[in-house]
């Protein structure tokens, strides 16, 4: 496989974006909302084609900067799915996102950035791809710039994003300084002098902070509530799904490549961040009244869960995080779809506004309920299995080390609190009487189809998780040989000494 065919998916997406931009210029403005459909369809085609190509097991391109392996592919497909639903969402009822041709184009460009990021083989591509995503999102978040909230959210995202990028670059510089390389494969086996160890550690923490910005993990979680609240609903959906997954895959990659030198560092770092994220997000979410803001906090909690899987350090743990990310993606997409239909894309989403939704639109009520239940981690939906796998990986690596006990304890507390606030939403949907002006809500056909697909996905993943578990463990397994290599290196090291 040549380098260009290796980046074929990304190229396709970029070309698609440009094409839509061109078409958009020519099409009259009334028919431009049509472009989102086209983009969604196109993304679907790319997704399909990703299954038709036979990908190499694991191969590096462009002198090791670009990797094709199971992990990259897993995430690329996840990004494609997320982008597809986001585009459908954008095409629907929300006026302001559909009018411009820019919206689908920007989504596609961000998508391309995400896909590149998933394949990053070193810090260089990591940074560039990450910034591609981030800069695109600055625009997307502030897309409804005629509303003050969207604008404010954009500025906040911009400032915090830029600061964390600075930390990221500094961190990369330190790691580079300590090891002399930016390539992940070389990093893995790069020797570090004792004098440089601290530099390396600080560098890794800063890189974690920079990448954790995408994930919304403590300490760079602070933007999430404001941005989720202010951004248009489809953008929120993309933040919760694609953008968060980018953070996850990059942390997995960095962690995987520095595990040898920084095993305890990662364990402590991830555990502390996970605990803080879960507690912070869950506690702050309790008194929330705006659904989008609530999702912002819950996204912080989710980041914590994802980190727990990584913190357990096992292959199963990382697989669990991947599974949970997928489940979360489905649920978050469904919730944001409902929000954008019920409230409009960039209006405030007061939870009390959901009163009597079961009467106004049973489909939306059921979709919201299912996704809330899935987010709360209750069977038989996807979220339950995700949390189950996470707990399993944590317990599995626990023995009875105090750190992981705390982690599990915090996780239990977090799940409980999240049940509390998710049930608040369900309560508003079902047992608060509808307000007087509760008209029934019109759901377009494409939205209906999208919602049903998401619901089926939630239930399917909950009842028959086997395939996805295999896929996620396969994805993790594809980077495992290198993990095995680590073990060998460690052994050699030991023998040498």
């Amino acid at each position, binding site marked *: 496989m040549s380098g260009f065919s290796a980046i074929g998916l990304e190229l396709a997406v970029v070309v698609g974006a440009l094409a839509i931009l061109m078409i958009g210029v020519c099409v009259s403005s009334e028919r431009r909302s049509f472009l989102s459909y086209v983009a969604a369809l196109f993304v679907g085609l790319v997704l399909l084609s990703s299954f038709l190509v036979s990908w190499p097991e694991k191969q590096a391109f462009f002198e090791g900067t670009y990797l094709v392996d199971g992990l990259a592919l897993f995430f690329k497909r996840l990004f494609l799915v997320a982008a597809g639903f986001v585009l459908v969402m954008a095409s629907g009822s929300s006026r302001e996102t559909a009018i411009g041709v820019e919206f689908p184009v920007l989504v596609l460009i961000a998508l391309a950035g995400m896909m590149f990021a998933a394949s990053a083989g*070193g810090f260089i591509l990591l940074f560039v791809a990450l910034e591609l995503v981030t800069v695109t999102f*600055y625009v997307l978040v502030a897309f409804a710039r005629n509303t*003050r909230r969207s*604008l404010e959210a954009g500025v*906040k995202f*911009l400032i915090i994003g*830029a600061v964390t*990028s*600075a930390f990221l670059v*500094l961190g990369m510089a330190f790691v580079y300084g300590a090891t002399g390389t930016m390539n992940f494969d070389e990093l893995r086996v790069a020797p570090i002098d004792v004098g440089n160890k601290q530099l390396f550690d600080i560098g890794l923490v800063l890189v974690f902070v920079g990448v954790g910005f995408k994930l919304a993990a403590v300490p760079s979680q602070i933007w999430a509530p404001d941005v989720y609240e202010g951004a248009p609903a489809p953008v929120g959906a993309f933040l919760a799904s694609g953008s968060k997954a980018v953070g996850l895959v990059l942390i997995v990659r960095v962690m995987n490549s520095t595990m040898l030198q920084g095993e305890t560092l990662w364990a402590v770092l991830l555990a502390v961040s996970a605990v803080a994220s879960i507690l912070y997000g869950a506690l702050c979410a309790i008194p929330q009244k705006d659904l989008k803001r609530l999702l912002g906090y819950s996204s912080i909690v989710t980041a914590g869960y994802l980190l727990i899987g990584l913190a357990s350090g096992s292959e199963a743990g990382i697989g669990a995080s991947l599974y949970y990310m997928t489940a979360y993606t489905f649920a978050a997409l469904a919730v944001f779809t409902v929000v954008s239909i019920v409230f409009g894309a960039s209006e405030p989403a007061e939870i009390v506004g959901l009163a009597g939704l079961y009467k106004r639109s049973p489909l939306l009520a059921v979709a919201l309920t299912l996704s809330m239940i899935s987010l709360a981690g209750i069977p038989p939906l996807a979220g339950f299995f995700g949390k189950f796998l996470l707990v399993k990986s944590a317990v599995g690596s626990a023995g009875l080390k105090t750190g992981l006990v705390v982690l599990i304890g915090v996780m239990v507390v977090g799940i409980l609190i999240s049940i509390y606030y998710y049930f608040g939403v369900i309560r508003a949907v079902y047992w608060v009487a509808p307000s007087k002006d509760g008209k029934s809500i019109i759901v377009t056909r494409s939205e209906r189809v999208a919602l049903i697909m998401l619901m089926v996905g939630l239930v399917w993943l909950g009842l028959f998780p086997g395939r996805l578990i295999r896929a996620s463990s396969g994805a993790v397994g594809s980077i495992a040989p290198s993990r095995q290599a680590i073990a060998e290196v460690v052994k050699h090291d030991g023998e040498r000494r």
Partner: protein
Amino acid sequence: MTVGLNHYLAVSGLLFCIGLAGVLFRRNLLVVYMCIEMMLAAASLALVAFSRFRGDLDGQVLALLVISVAAAEVAVGLALIVAVCRRGLKPTADELAGMKL
């Protein structure tokens, strides 16, 4: 006295801290934004310094990319700040604190 790696790093660190302090304490968002650019530049300086003393070009490549990405960021950032001003808002952090808690 020969100028060594540590000197570069000290300068870089100093710059980074100045930038950070600016981000934290300046009122005008435009200035804040410039301070962020300063932080990026400081980080790039560290990169280049390491690259130079390691005798490896990767760092310099990344530094170049950082500069170009920063330019893109500035474009978007300025546009946003302009949009803020066009809505008749002052570009300060206090003014843009509508969403909270």
